[in-house]
């Protein structure tokens, strides 16, 4: 396998080709926050927290490190001003959506996001898709999926399949960053039992 060398935060790192920037960074002990990433699943690129700045000024741009292929000669900054500002805004948005989630509160504190400028929607599910993707790619039961689009997008258990598969499995529950998944399932279960 061909070897490539890239520069992350002024550190020259040589790896085998075929990895993403995130994989290279984590392998070298460089911290990049993520919410929708999981080593066993196909990278999803939805939370955008893993954004890093690539290129040389003035021609730089932000890319999702979980999906961007590491390339020879690539220059990456994981904590540039632009990256930090973007992460701060993303965390403000996530806080409005899941105000009580520990993982988001911790990240918000780390990045100095204190003011609540946005209207709280408090739906708690941040649509990271870890549950949906785990059930589709690893468990292969497809018991849970997305419905709707835009701000109406939701995660939904498929009743016909979930009633059979989920009670004995439950493997996706601990993956949920906000912890709302388990409560969601209990609610669905009780509604179905009612029928």
């Amino acid at each position, binding site marked *: 396998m061909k070897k490539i060398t890239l520069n992350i935060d002024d550190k020259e790192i040589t790896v085998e080709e075929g990895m993403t920037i995130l994989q290279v960074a984590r392998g070298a002990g460089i911290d990049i926050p993520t919410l929708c990433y999981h080593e066993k699943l196909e990278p999803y690129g939805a939370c955008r927290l893993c954004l890093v700045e690539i290129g040389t000024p003035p021609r730089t741009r932000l890319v999702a490190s979980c999906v961007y292929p590491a390339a020879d000669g690539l220059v990456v900054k994981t904590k540039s001003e632009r990256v930090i500002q973007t992460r701060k805004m993303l965390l403000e948005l996530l806080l409005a959506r899941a105000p009580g989630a520990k993982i988001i509160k911790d990240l918000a504190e780390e990045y100095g996001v204190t003011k609540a400028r946005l209207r709280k929607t408090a739906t708690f599910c941040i649509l990271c898709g870890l549950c949906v993707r785990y059930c589709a790619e690893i468990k292969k039961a*497809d018991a849970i*999926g*997305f*419905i709707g689009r835009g701000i109406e997008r939701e995660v939904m258990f498929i009743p*016909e399949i979930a009633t059979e598969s989920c009670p004995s499995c439950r493997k996706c529950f601990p993956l949920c960053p906000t912890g709302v998944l388990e409560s969601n399932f209990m609610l669905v279960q009780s509604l179905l039992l009612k029928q």
Partner: protein
Amino acid sequence: MVIDNSEVNVKRINQILATYKGESNLLIQVLLEIQKELRWLPKEGLIRISQELNVPLRQVYHAVTFYKAFSLVPKGKYTVSVCMGTACHVRGSPRILDRVEQTLGIHSGETTPDFKFSLETVNCLGCCAMGPVMVVGDVYHGKLSLDQVRRILDSYD
């Protein structure tokens, strides 16, 4: 008159599915045809589609809730689509929508109790020079004025 008979529905769905021979990439085309034929997508149909096309049920549900063309509840005989594209907006389509809602007694997204009309908004029909535009069934009505609305809707039985 809405077809509310499960057996008839499934029979017609099976007929349509037979012509698609299990090609999973035609999911959206199949859904469009069934929606056009039955004026809605009954749940039994979604399960059959999932089985026949070998597509996970969750993907079928995502498709039917993602696209505006699909309805999980029966729609009226005539769908009234009021165009809310920019050109029509600038020519007063919000007022046309108000008048249609007043005339039919329903809001956008709803169906009249007699299942005659379903009302929806659409984000551009491409008749921008004829704005404001509304489609009833498959007939287009352009250069609409407020007083034409009732006359047009009354002409449908």
